[in-house]
């Protein structure tokens, strides 16, 4: 299912990150960084809420918009009942839609907001996501101070909040089209190898996007997946080749690999993950390149592992989904 949008543009973006992202190769590109994972708050959950809230604050500042000028906020995160989003947007008193599709929440948000804007229901919308390494560890894995050894295929949840303002007024970057992904299942059961669970969803969405739009793989300057990590990236390349006969390796990269230096930052293992991973890279690094026209056409394929510990303990596979958004620099 692919939609084309006629008049949806990116006004500006805002990113706030924690210490590990600051240390990474994109460290100086974020709007605000913290040296401490608590970010001055008393709990991990409050810290994540603050990251999301601050990214919206910074975005409003950068775009010089008042909160009553914003028609809609769409936000999501990984915590139970998407609480970081609900608490994070509360003070703005802007109409709010909470969404969840794990680490592909950002693209789902952009595609919902774009549909509203393109249909002229609203003039603009903010799409926000957040994730917090420690809050995720606490919710999905072990207590944060517990030193459970992890295999190398495990990924490291990014700590950050990321927001984007979409609008109908023309700017330098356009949201050109979007593809809604399907829930995929390849009977993957290892929570320490999410890249393997998600690669199939990314492949399915990329293939369907290209099919729906009748485009060649070389149409895009860059195809950027969300958080497959070092090993998931290789799985995607090989799977695309053998299943669809498409070689994506020439203009393909993964946000999870880009956000950290996987060679020197050993604790990140296979790379970054979490809903904030894809937008942190895209908003701080890729969209500025589109504005400068260094890149002209980019397909963002955020990837989400629909991982629920309860279902996995009940011997159910880890499902995955991926929504794609195509961004183009405006001529």
């Amino acid at each position, binding site marked *: 299912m692919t939609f084309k949008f006629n008049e949806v543009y990116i006004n500006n973006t805002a990113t706030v990150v924690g210490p590990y992202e600051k240390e990474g190769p994109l460290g100086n590109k974020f709007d605000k960084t913290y040296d401490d994972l608590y970010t001055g708050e008393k709990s991990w959950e409050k810290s994540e809420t603050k990251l999301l809230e601050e990214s919206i604050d910074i975005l409003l500042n950068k775009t010089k918009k008042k909160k009553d000028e914003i028609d809609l906020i769409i936000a999501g995160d990984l915590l139970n009942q998407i609480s970081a989003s609900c608490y994070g947007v509360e003070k703005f008193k802007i109409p709010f839609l909470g969404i969840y599709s794990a680490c592909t929440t950002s693209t789902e948000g952009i595609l919902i907001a774009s549909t509203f804007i393109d249909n002229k229901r609203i003039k603009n919308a903010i799409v926000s996501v957040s994730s917090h390494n420690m809050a995720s560890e606490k919710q999905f894995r072990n*207590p944060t101070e517990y030193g459970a050894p992890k295999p190398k295929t495990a990924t490291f949840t990014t700590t950050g909040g990321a927001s984007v303002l979409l609008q109908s007024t023309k700017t330098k970057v356009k949201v050109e089209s979007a593809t809604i992904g399907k829930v995929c299942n390849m009977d993957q059961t290892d929570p320490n190898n999410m890249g393997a669970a998600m690669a*199939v969803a990314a492949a399915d969405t990329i293939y369907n996007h290209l099919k729906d739009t009748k485009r060649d793989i070389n149409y895009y300057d860059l195809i950027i997946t969300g958080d497959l990590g070092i090993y998931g990236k290789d799985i995607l390349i090989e799977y695309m080749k053998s299943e669809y006969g498409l070689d994506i390796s020439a203009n393909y990269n993964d946000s999870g690999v880009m956000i950290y230096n996987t060679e020197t930052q050993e604790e990140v293992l296979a790379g970054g993950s979490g809903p904030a991973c894809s937008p942190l890279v895209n908003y701080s690094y890729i969209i500025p390149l589109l504005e400068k026209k260094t890149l002209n056409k980019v397909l963002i394929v955020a990837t989400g592992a629909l991982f629920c510990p309860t279902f996995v303990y009940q011997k159910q596979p880890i499902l995955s989904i991926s929504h794609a958004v195509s961004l183009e620099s405006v001529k």
Partner: protein
Amino acid sequence: MEKKDYKKIVDKHKAKETRVQNGIVAFLTGGLVGVIAEFLIQVYSYFLDISTQDASVFMIVTLIFIAALFTALGFFDKWVNFAKCGLIIPITGFAHSMMSSGMEYKKEGLIYGIGSNIFKLAGSVILYGVVSAWFFGTIRFLLFGGV
């Protein structure tokens, strides 16, 4: 593509885990914990003039205290990550799991936080420890009498 073919691709792109190296590290660090424990027993029984059995109890309490303190100070998880089973299998692992759970859920209060969650990881060890103690105790009783 069939799921089993996909699994083949996944297996092909899996990282090689350094199992032998992990085993050696765990063996050495676990052994080191044993040496320290033995040293503590000797020190306690010599200086406090108590039996080896009592000194063993003192030693266990000391190791639990050290593991809990180091967990609270925030660096024991890095040690465990390095030593793996070398520190997880001894009593230090049990103390570490309880302390880290207790710290993690402090924010949710005494009942719903610490009380409900402190045995999150250690609960299995206690439950199956008690069950297996009963089981093997029964076997011992049946085979050798109550000796």
